[in-house]
Structures are given as structure tokens and as C-alpha cells.
């Protein structure tokens, strides 16, 4: 009753949006589609929510075929598109009522499911949706997507442009929904959110780079990774980019993340090189790769 995607392709004219994508989302799994703008995430969402037809391949959602049984899918899924798409000139309560009615239910009937989320915006239930803050809009959109008790929930970049505090709260809500048995497919460009999913698919340029648990994906990073610190970040990046043994060098918070071309890298030699380049307070130590490191390695 999850989601099954088999060899799906979709092009817009000359542009290939999705190229032979396959994945399966298990029932009540929290599954992340991780990739930047233009990766093809929204196209996949639109195909699975039956708003668009793929050029090739098959897909089922909650056991229903996206082509033959699209009406059943529409009754069984909740979809929160990336762009805020509620009625701006209806109030919070009117929007929720509207979506409940369309699906032949009432707010009261499924209030349990949305209670945690809806109580946070209930004080503003008479405010027009267009006048809500970003965080409140997001909570209303999620409430509307849930009000008919969907089996599968599609969330297209629900946290883009949202601050870290609201993002954290949003993911806590998703975890609670998952515990209630809802299958969730969520996309995000934030790599730190990937770690919160059961499994993730890394996607770029319409192709899947890798599918696995976040922990396993990080484990696939092919080289020893080092944090390098020096006082002058710009100088450090420039120097390391020109170093003869550099395999990759990326700014990463207060450090640069560095991998070396050689089998065994020589920490002292790099230190000496950086001193010679005029850098100070140099520190080099081994570090653990993150999903973002792995993504960048795969996307190279």
C-alpha cells in the first residue's frame, strides 16, 4: 500500500525531467526525495498524484495504478504542492472546511489526525489564508492535505525557505503522522533533513544517484575525509584548490572538507604547504562524512 515506481521517464520537449526512475516506498515509511531545484522532484510528484502522465514506465500509489485507477488515487492521497495553493481569500477555517467537503467528510470526523497541527493555527481560524505568516500557511496546507485521512501523503518541498526552528517542528509533526500509519514521500533541498527519513533517494538532473538508509549512504563515501581549518577561509580554499594532491575541497561550516588523491595522505606535508602559502592557525583532522558530502561526491 505504499508507492511503486518502475522505469518512469518524462520529457518536456528537449528537456528530460525524469530519466528511467525506479523506487519503492513501503507502507508507513517516511521516504525522502533529496535533490536541488531542477532535479525532477516535482515532476515525479505530479505523476504520482495523477496530475501528469509519464512518457514511459509504470507506477502505483496505495495499490492503485496511476493511469487506470487515478480516481481511486485521488481519494487516497494528500498532496501539499511546493507553491502555497490554498484559497488566499478564504479564512483558515473556510479552507479546511472546503477541503473536507470536497472529499465528502467533515473536520470533526478526522479532527484527531490534524489536532496537533491545527491547534497551533486555530487561534487564527477567522484570518484569511493570504494574511498568514509562512509557518502558519505551511501548517494550514498540511492540515488541508490530511483532512480526508489519506493513506499516502505527498509533500513537495514543505520546508523550503522556512527557518530552522519551524523546519524542526515540521519534521516532528511528520514523525507523528508516520506513527499513525501514513506513508509519506517528502522532498527537500536541505540535506540535513535527509537524516530524519527512513530511506532516501538522492536525485539530480532527472536521475537517481542512490537509494538507501541515510546511515548506509553516508557509509558509502569512498575516501577518508578531513576537516581543515585556517584563519583565512578564502586563502585556504584558494590554496587547497591549487594543491597537487587535492581530490576534492569544499567549504563546510567553519572548515573545508578535503579528500586526497593518494592512498595515504600526508598531514604534515599539507600543513607545511599551507604555512608556505601564508596561512596561520592550521588544523587538520579526520571527520565523518555527511549526506551532503556523499551527494556532492555522487553528483560530481
Amino acid at each position: 500500500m505504499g508507492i511503486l515506481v518502475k522505469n518512469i521517464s518524462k520529457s518536456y520537449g528537449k528537456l528530460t525531467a525524469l530519466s528511467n526512475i525506479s523506487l519503492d516506498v513501503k507502507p508507513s515509511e517516511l521516504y525522502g526525495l533529496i535533490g536541488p531545484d531542477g532535479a525532477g522532484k516535482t515532476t515525479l510528484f505530479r505523476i504520482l498524484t495523477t496530475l501528469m502522465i509519464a512518457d514511459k514506465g509504470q507506477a502505483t500509489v496505495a495499490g492503485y495504478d496511476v493511469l487506470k485507477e487515478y480516481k481511486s488515487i485521488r481519494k487516497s492521497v494528500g498532496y501539499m504542492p511546493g507553491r502555497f495553493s490554498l484559497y488566499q481569500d478564504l479564512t483558515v477555517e473556510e479552507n479546511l472546511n472546503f477541503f473536507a467537503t470536497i472529499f465528502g467528510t467533515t473536520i470533526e470526523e478526522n479532527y484527531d489526525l490534524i489536532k496537533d497541527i491545527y491547534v497551533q493555527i486555530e487561534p487564527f481560524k477567522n484570518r484569511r489564508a493570504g494574511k498568514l505568516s509562512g509557518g502558519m500557511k505551511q501548517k494550514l496546507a498540511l492540515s488541508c492535505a490530511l483532512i480526508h485521512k489519506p493513506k499516502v501523503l505527498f509533500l513537495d518541498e514543505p520546508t523550503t525557505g522556512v527557518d530552522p526552528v519551524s523546519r524542526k517542528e515540521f519534521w516532528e509533526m511528520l514523525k507523528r503522522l508516520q506513527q499513525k500509519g501514513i506513508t509519506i514521500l517528502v522532498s527537500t533541498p536541505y540535506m540535513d533533513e535527509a537524516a530524519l527519513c527512513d530511506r532516501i533517494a538522492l536525485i539530480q538532473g532527472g536521475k537517481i544517484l542512490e537509494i538507501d538508509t541515510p546511515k548506509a549512504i553516508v557509509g558509502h563515501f569512498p575516501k577518508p575525509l578531513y576537516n581543515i581549518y585556517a584563519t583565512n577561509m578564502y586563502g585556504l580554499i584558494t590554496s587547497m584548490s591549487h594543491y597537487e594532491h587535492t581530490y576534492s575541497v569544499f567549504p563546510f561550516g567553519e572548515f573545508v572538507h578535503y579528500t586526497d588523491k593518494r592512498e595515504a595522505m600526508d598531514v604534515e606535508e599539507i600543513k607545511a604547504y599551507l604555512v608556505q602559502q601564508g596561512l596561520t592557525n592550521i588544523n587538520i583532522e579526520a571527520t565523518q562524512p555527511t549526506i551532503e558530502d556523499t551527494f556532492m561526491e555522487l553528483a560530481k
Partner: protein
Amino acid sequence: MIQKHNVIEVENLSKLFGDFAAVNQISFQVKAGEIFGFLGANGAGKTTAMKMLIGISSPTSGKATVAGFDVYREAESIKKNIGYMSQKFALYDDLTVKENITFFGGIYGLSKKQIEQKRCELVEELGLQEVTNSLVASLPLGWKQKLAFSVSLLHEPKIVFLDEPTGGVDPITRRQFWELIYKAAHNGTTIFVTTHYMDEAEYCDRVSIMVNGKIEALDTPKKLKEQYKTNTMNDVFLKLARG
């Protein structure tokens, strides 16, 4: 080391909408060549504060100068001396790369010769030779953002304001973008930047965090982490903004 002069000075700056204080008596200074991170939750007042600093919104009270010009009386001079780019608006999608550069160069009062020279430098540096005559709409988001940043520097402003410049951009391009920022700062341009990526907060020389219209913290990332006893700026942010 010579003490660098301030290019932004803000003292008790406020903006009221009715009786709601969107910006509530904020004070800070930014030095020449500094990368200054301006952080806060959605609705904390960042955009309102930034609009006052770039001369498109008049403060209710308080003082502020940007590049030496007063935000009340010399807003037009401010606009000529700063660069600005945001995630939402940066370039015209239905003009080509070349046309966008010519257009913005013209807006900023550069001569034809200067525009020509800047265009060659910029296209060379960003490796856009193949696409100079393509519509900006056809470029990947990451290229657009790098181009937009370079265009905001065409008139060699003292300060450039970047409003969430890297939202949604892939991780590699996001880092290339920051390398452009470092380079501009290295050449003496002051960078004033907002972001929701907390690893980018670490790239800043100093960071301020706004909560409910006030600046609740302002220091180097290192000192903020020490002060709040955490290992990451993400945790500093969560501790502060959650109240």
C-alpha cells in the same frame, strides 16, 4: 592591523506597522570587507530591517547610515552605492545573459565601454561563453544565482545585500557561490547576507540573530557557539529563536 571603518551604522532603528514593532530598536555596525550574516526566524523582522537599509522603506525612528549616507535623507545615494540580489528577484528571465548585463550596467550608470569590459570579465570568470546569447530563463538555477551575484557587483558597490541567495541551489553550486562571496569580500566589498542554511552562517565573519524584531545575539560564529555551549550554529539558532 589598521582598524577598518564602518560601512553600516545602525542605532536604535525601529519600524512600526500600527502598534506592531516589526523592527524594535536594533543597533549594530558592519565593517568594510566584512561578511555579515543577518539571521532570524520567518517573521522576525529581517526583511523589514533590510528594506530600511537599502533605502526603500523609511524607518519610524532611530538612526542608520549605509556607505556613509543617511537612510532618511539620502536613500537615492544609498541605492547607487549598494548592490542587491534576492532569491525572488534577480535577473530578467526573458532577456539574454548579455542583455541583462547591459541593462543592469546601464541602470547603474556605467558607460558603454565599461559595460563591454565588465561583460567580458564576468562571462570569462563564470565560464558563460557558450550561453551569452541564451535567455536567462534557460539557465540552471545555480548559474542564474552566480550570474545575478556578479551583476549586483557590476558598479563596484561598497556593500552588497544578499537576501537568501542560495535557497534551493544544489550543494556544489552553493559552495561555488560562497567562493564568489569570499572573493568579493577579499577585494574589499562588504557582504550583508541572510540565509536559512546554518552551515552558511558559519562562513560569516560575524552573525546577528533577530528574534521578534530585536537583535538577540551578535558575534563571531565561534564566540556564539561558546556562549551558547553548542557545537553548531544550528543549535545556537534553535536555542535562541525558540525563546
